[in-house]
């Protein structure tokens, strides 16, 4: 996997500056640089391959459209991830309001074009356990443990105190652990 999170900040700021001046190449570089993380985060939250593609695309386009609004003093990545997570949660809520579309929580991912190596058992169990968390809890777990944000950063991104983030994360991890243990018992 490419180390997408190790982008030098100065390089990023330069790309954003060029994008603001209308450079399509800079925009392309930004999209390519952040695509994998944005798409993976969306996929782990919504558990739907097609929706994850749409959400990642939509978030990229929203970020490009608002690039002039973006505060250059702040890092770009959390801003984009916040858009991705918000859109993912919106999508889940919209889906919950349309009960005719069933939510895939236990089987293989619907519509996924999985071209990578076959998932191992642990990853499969983790995916199923994640799917059973509440959407907000799932988003927190993904943002903390996949995207690597710390509680104060998450608090700023989600407009809640860092202590609340820590409490909710602890609750989510406890539940995730219980779900994984249950999955393991089922497996044996």
């Amino acid at each position: 996997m490419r180390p997408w999170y190790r982008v030098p900040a100065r390089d990023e700021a330069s790309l954003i500056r060029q994008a603001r001046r209308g450079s399509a190449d800079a925009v392309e570089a930004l999209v390519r640089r952040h695509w994998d993380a944005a798409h993976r985060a969306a996929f782990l939250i919504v558990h739907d391959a097609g929706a994850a593609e749409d959400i990642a695309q939509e978030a990229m386009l929203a970020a490009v459209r608002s690039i002039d609004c973006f505060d250059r003093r702040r890092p770009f990545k959390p801003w984009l991830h916040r858009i991705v997570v918000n859109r993912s949660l919106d999508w889940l809520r919209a889906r919950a309001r349309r009960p005719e579309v069933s939510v895939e929580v236990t089987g293989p991912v619907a519509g996924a074009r999985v071209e990578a190596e076959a998932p191992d058992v642990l990853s499969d169990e983790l995916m199923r356990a994640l799917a059973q968390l509440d959407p907000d809890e799932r988003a927190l777990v993904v943002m903390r443990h996949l995207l690597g944000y710390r509680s104060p950063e998450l608090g700023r991104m989600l407009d809640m105190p860092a202590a609340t983030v820590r409490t909710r994360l602890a609750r989510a991890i406890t539940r995730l652990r219980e779900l994984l243990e249950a999955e393991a018992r089922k497996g044996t």
Partner: protein
Amino acid sequence: MSPDLLKERLAEIPAPQAVHAREKAVLEARAEIEARGVSEDPLRRGMLRQHPLLGLAAAVVLVVVLLLTPPGRAASAWVGELVGIGDVGGPPSQERQGRFIKPGTAIVIDNGAAPDGSRYEWVAYRCGENLRSEGIDTKFEGIGVALQWPKVRSEEGGGYCEELQGRPHAPALTSNGVHILPSQFKGVAKPDLVIEGTTGPRVHRIRVVYRDGEGRRRDLPVDFARVEGRLRRLASQPEALGTFVAFLPGDVAARDEVASRLDLRALMGTGTLKLGPIGRGERAQAREGFRKCAHLEPNPGDLPPNPSRSAMERAMGPATRCYDRYMPTGPLEYMAYDEHGRVIQRMNEPLVTAMVRPADTIKAEGREEPGDKRRRLPKETGSDARKVLMSGRAPDGALYEFYLEQTKYGVCMQIWWPYAFGGGGSCGPDLPPARAYGRRNPERVFAKPFGFLSDEPRATTSRYISGFARPRVARVQVVYRDSRGRPHDAPVQLAHVTASTLGKIEASEPFGFWIAFIPRSAGHRQITVTAYAGNGDRLGEQFTPARP
């Protein structure tokens, strides 16, 4: 599972390859930025809207990219499917709560993001009220537009319901004011500010010009969106409208004291007002302006009864010109342009803290002079009946009348001054109002203030406070304290109201109504209201909270 293992496992979950989607996103993003053109200054991102030909050319390029190339066609089809929650044309991310708002009618008419990434949505909704089932002849249908910040628990909020029937054309420009960015309301030392408003059907462009502390002017980027065609019909709007949003960076706002000059916290009760050197200078300038210009304002007795807007403008002309010359100008100016680029309206955001006119520059005119004509009180729309409940004079001789009016909004109870401008009151479905005796143990309350200590400097030199009393209350004593803390009795007038005195106006029970006058020098110290029975027995006591 340890955090490290969890992170490792999350990273190992095989996400589907999304090469096609990524390439589509790249194509879309490139098309978006190419269609936008080159921007010299990020602050001028509204350039396409300001240069219609450039905008048209860019739009043509975008249409060509979107419609003529195969990936473009695929991408435009994808964009077409995106009308979901929070998108333009779709429902808002957060349903607005409110007594008047009709559930399920809200539509997003524009959206965007603040500099810190927090999302905003302009939402149009239908609203209305029908109290006929409660026996009150009040029914109306209306519309409203509000700026919402999904997922931000805001300290401030707003919205309105404008009655559709008999609605005049919307003004070219309506500022909803300047606010602290809701996502930065707490815990941010120098929060960004958001400037927002709506426009009428003729407006095709808005400029927001910021004047910094040293007088330099600069255009702020404006997100202006017109709502017309299908979206207008979807949003139940009777005519085209526009919305605009602009942002002022927090460091600039803090440097130029914008929040205190516009009183963005104390006015909303969410902080205290502390003026800096710029604000203090403006207040001094405004005080001088009032001294020079206030005497040019027309005498109400010289005006015709119920003067038209143009008559008022003519009468105010000398004072307006004087104020324009001597008063400080606010930091924000708005300009609305029509489709031909002509300015059709401009306005300044009022400097709230400077523009509070010092009471000692206002002449109280509530006491009639020989030859003064009594003003005629205009009737409320749909007024069925009106009854004067109480009439009397303030300590300086200003004549006042409290009257009740049955309207389609319920019963209104208002004070007015027959020889001076001023007055006001409240309307509601119940008389006496459900909270006339407070929320906690109202059965134990005999007389209580309803509303705040009011100031009508154009009518009287005193402040006044009023409220309701139980039928068995024969006397109300109101005691205020002077600057040394010594108690004084305020002059009080009490009137008892029964069904026979109300005529056509409906009340749920008999009640008393009282008014007391307090000298302005007493400030906003605590006031004691004591109710006495006919035999002199003390029935109960209430206090107003002291204000600094």
